[in-house]
């Protein structure tokens, strides 16, 4: 059974802290993505990666960075957490190429910044 695993289901962090969200997939997928989900805004793409050590900005990259040192692992980093980064964070992976058979998502990390 294919899996995308996010290291934490719930996190509470203080303003200004550096936060690491980890995501691991076991499907040998080339592509990995980080989204955040907010009410009324849907899923918004933060960063994505098509290969190891490769990263691309999504639609809302400000305040975030990413790291992909190994194919199976994609980390999202909040350099200095702020309260407006309180959100549900979703990691996803997919095969490269077309057609797109869809993403496999992790269960999400609910981050609260206080």
């Amino acid at each position, binding site marked *: 059974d294919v899996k*995308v695993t996010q290291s934490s289901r719930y996190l509470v962090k203080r303003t200004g802290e550096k936060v690491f969200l980890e995501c691991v997939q076991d499907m040998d997928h080339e592509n990995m993505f980080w989204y955040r989900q907010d009410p009324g805004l*849907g*899923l918004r793409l933060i960063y994505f990666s098509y290969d190891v050590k490769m990263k691309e900005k999504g639609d809302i990259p400000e305040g975030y960075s990413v790291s992909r040192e190994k194919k199976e692992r994609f980390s999202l980093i909040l350099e200095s957490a702020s309260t407006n980064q309180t959100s549900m964070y979703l990691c996803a992976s997919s095969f*490269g190429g*077309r*057609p*797109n*058979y869809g993403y496999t998502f992790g269960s*999400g990390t609910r981050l609260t910044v206080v």
Partner: protein
Amino acid sequence: DQQVKQNSPSLSVQEGRISILNCDYTNSMFDYFLWYKKYPAEGPTFLISISSIKDKNEDGRFTVFLNKSAKHLSLHIVPSQPGDSAVYFCAAEPETSGSRLTFGEGTQLTVNP
């Protein structure tokens, strides 16, 4: 600039009836469309997709219709079941982007017994 829009935040239907969820898009480069379902405290799961060369794709109780001229797609669920209660996201992919998806805001479907 919301390129994929789901204008109905919520929809309530009776068990056994049809649920119709709608989605509009503005980017004419989108050529592949997907629907995802999301339960609380879980990640979204892939439901059904359609390529722009088709106007209909069916999978069991779920059918997706695509109207390219209107830049509109819809998801029909027949018959609706209480277990279908979830948030449904529409997503679209342009042919040049690899596999990057743009999602809509989501529609909360509630199926009442």
